[in-house]
């Protein structure tokens, strides 16, 4: 009997069921667990209090990122400089001690491999297709770019995974988001994912795992796919998946933690069986045409508040839903924007190029192509924060750091930085930031900070013009080739 056609999600799920309970919930085996300093101390504390061990330490990898200052962190001898904020220092210290005590691999802040947890996982080959991967962080969805079923969990679940290597889960519904066509000049993966969230809404994916399909997704590099899957959670989805293909295998091959020798061949053979079967059915399907996607950005305080750069600040009265009208009014008040203002007329004071959404080498190249031979506008502070020490090193080998520094950008050490207000990089109250991160929530980049989410090229364009600006109007070394 022919088997019912299955989606990628269903295949990964089925391969990880330890036990199915009568009510349909399943005990799911977790292949990969990433840990950082903010959401893990209470989990290790819980293990200690109950006298429990980490079941399979080799399946977990820890790296600090959220709290670390992005200023130089080593002295001349390569030792870690003290962290000024005592609470951050305490969390960072707890991660170091906990991982040593429980035998978990830990990448220190002084290591070249250190970086944002969602940049480090794929880069080290810790993230693999067909795995279940979790982390106490909602943007874990990023790893779905390699075909891993990856999602964020809370600290109690972190403890549960450490102790049992499993989670008790109910199956999600599936949603296909298909993007076909060819992206226009100056339009990047970030613009695609903003368009998707603008279309489905911040709660559009609730209860679903999204699979991104279509020619646009297939033609993206792994970097671009990571940007898309990263923001699945901003559309409310539990996880985002992209089927593994030759691009995925080429990206992974030779990375430190990927399978070697005969295991590699065996793994690739299995990974090739994972893509969704023809005829498999999703619970929901949404389609977008690449031709309709412009360089996008957000105007409000929800990632669904998306507008093309050529657009204007919307009028709250234009929304049909009364609660959306009210929310828009509040957003505009917080953002200090007036309906009808052209987005391009909005001045900015800060630019942040970084975060697990857009801090990989391609992102830095795209921003540098715009920054080259230009100057950061007067009164603008612009930060470039590579996603990991290895990205930083590569960028320096390519000379990108010099382009940025000559243009007046700050070239920083890797970490979460200005993506969230947990380390010294913050946007002051009332000031406006063009940011390549993933959340524009109230206070996300600092109390009272105003955030506009956009692509690396658009962020660089904002830096050199001092306002939100259509990157397509700037001649760029990359675009003009």
């Amino acid at each position, binding site marked *: 009997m022919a088997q019912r056609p299955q989606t990628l999600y269903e295949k990964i799920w089925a391969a990880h069921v330890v036990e199915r309970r009568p009510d349909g919930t399943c005990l799911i085996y977790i292949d990969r667990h990433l840990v950082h300093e903010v959401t893990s101390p*209470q989990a290790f*504390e819980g293990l200690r209090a109950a006298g429990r061990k980490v079941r*399979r330490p080799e399946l977990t990898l820890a790296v600090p990122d959220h709290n670390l200052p992005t200023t130089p962190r080593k002295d001349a001898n390569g030792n870690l400089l003290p962290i000024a904020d005592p609470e951050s220092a305490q*969390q960072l210290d707890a991660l170091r001690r906990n991982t040593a005590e429980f035998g978990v691999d830990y990448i220190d802040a002084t290591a070249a*491999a250190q970086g944002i947890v969602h940049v480090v996982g794929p880069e080290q080959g810790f993230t693999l297709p067909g795995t279940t991967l979790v982390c106490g962080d909602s943007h874990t969805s990023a790893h779905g770019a390699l075909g891993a079923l990856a999602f964020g969990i809370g600290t109690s679940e972190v403890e549960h995974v450490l102790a049992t290597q499993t989670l008790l889960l109910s199956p999600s519904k599936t949603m296909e988001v298909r993007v076909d066509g060819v992206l226009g000049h100056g339009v990047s993966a970030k613009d695609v994912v903003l368009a998707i969230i603008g279309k489905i809404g*911040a*709660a559009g994916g609730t209860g679903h795992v999204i699979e991104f399909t279509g020619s646009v997704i297939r033609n993206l590099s792994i970097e671009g796919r990571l940007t898309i899957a990263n923001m699945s959670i901003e559309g409310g989805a539990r996880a985002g998946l992209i089927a593994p293909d030759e691009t995925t295998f080429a990206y992974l091959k030779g990375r430190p933690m990927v399978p070697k020798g005969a295991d590699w061949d065996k793994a690739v053979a299995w990974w090739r069986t994972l893509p969704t079967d023809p005829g498999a059915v999703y619970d929901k399907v949404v389609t977008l045409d690449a031709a309709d996607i412009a360089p996008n950005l957000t105007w409000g305080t929800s990632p669904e508040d998306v507008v093309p750069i050529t657009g204007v600040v919307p009028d709250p009265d234009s929304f049909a839903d009364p609660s959306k009208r009210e929310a828009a009014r509040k957003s505009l008040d917080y953002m200090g924007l007036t309906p009808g203002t052209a987005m391009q007329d909005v001045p900015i004071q800060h630019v942040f190029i970084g975060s697990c959404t857009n801090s990989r080498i391609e992102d830095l190249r795209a921003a540098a192509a715009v920054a080259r031979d230009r100057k950061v506008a007067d009164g603008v502070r612009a930060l470039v924060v590579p996603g990991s020490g290895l990205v930083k090193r590569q960028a320096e080998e390519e000379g990108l750091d010099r382009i940025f520094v000559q243009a007046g950008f700050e070239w920083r050490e890797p970490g979460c930085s200005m993506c969230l207000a947990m380390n010294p990089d913050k946007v002051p109250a009332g000031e406006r930031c063009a940011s390549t991160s993933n*959340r524009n929530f109230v*206070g996300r980049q600092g109390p009272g900070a105003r955030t506009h989410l956009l692509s690396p090229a658009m962020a660089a364009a904002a830096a050199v013009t001092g306002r939100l600006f259509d990157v397509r109007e700037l001649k760029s070394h990359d675009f003009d080739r």
Partner: protein
Amino acid sequence: MNPVTTVSGTAYPWGAKNIDTDVIIPAHWLKTITRAGLGRGAFETVRAQPDNIFDDPRYAGAPILIAGDNFGCGSSREHAAWALADMGIQAVIAPSFSDIFSGNAFKNGIVPVVLPQDAVDRLVEVAKDQPITVDLETMTVTTPFQDRFAFELDPFRRECLMKGLDEVGLTLARDEAIGSFEGQMAEGRPWIAGRQRLDAPTAGTA
């Protein structure tokens, strides 16, 4: 965890939509290594506004919060649930919750009650000056009037709440099943457990 069977009392009649975890507990409160004391930071940005609902003496110490769609969206921080628990909230009623927040709520003895928008609107009205009751036994929300709204809960989660069960302990009891899964995995997908380990924390593996 203490067992929860009913939650009864005043409720914050809020009804606000898309309340994200940065609003529930701003990031600067996350630099703690314990679960306690986060109530002080709960809804900090909301409480900075004059006449906010959380500082209204009529609702002080209310065990129930009524909110709008998509409550708890955003970050996975369990600190949001710890903060609510620390301020004494034992049930949140809303038309929908983010998946992660809902899981975190259960694990901290907070009942995430999903009711349709019109029921939530009615409860916001009633709660302005009347108490309400969330009953896990009958799975209903009731008011001093004739209102009676039925809700659903995952049976396993409900049992854990009502008996105050520790999920880690329950799963550890399934050790044999997990072990046999791991045995199959070692055969079929040997690369999962066989990954390269780091030799030192400062290893600059490229």
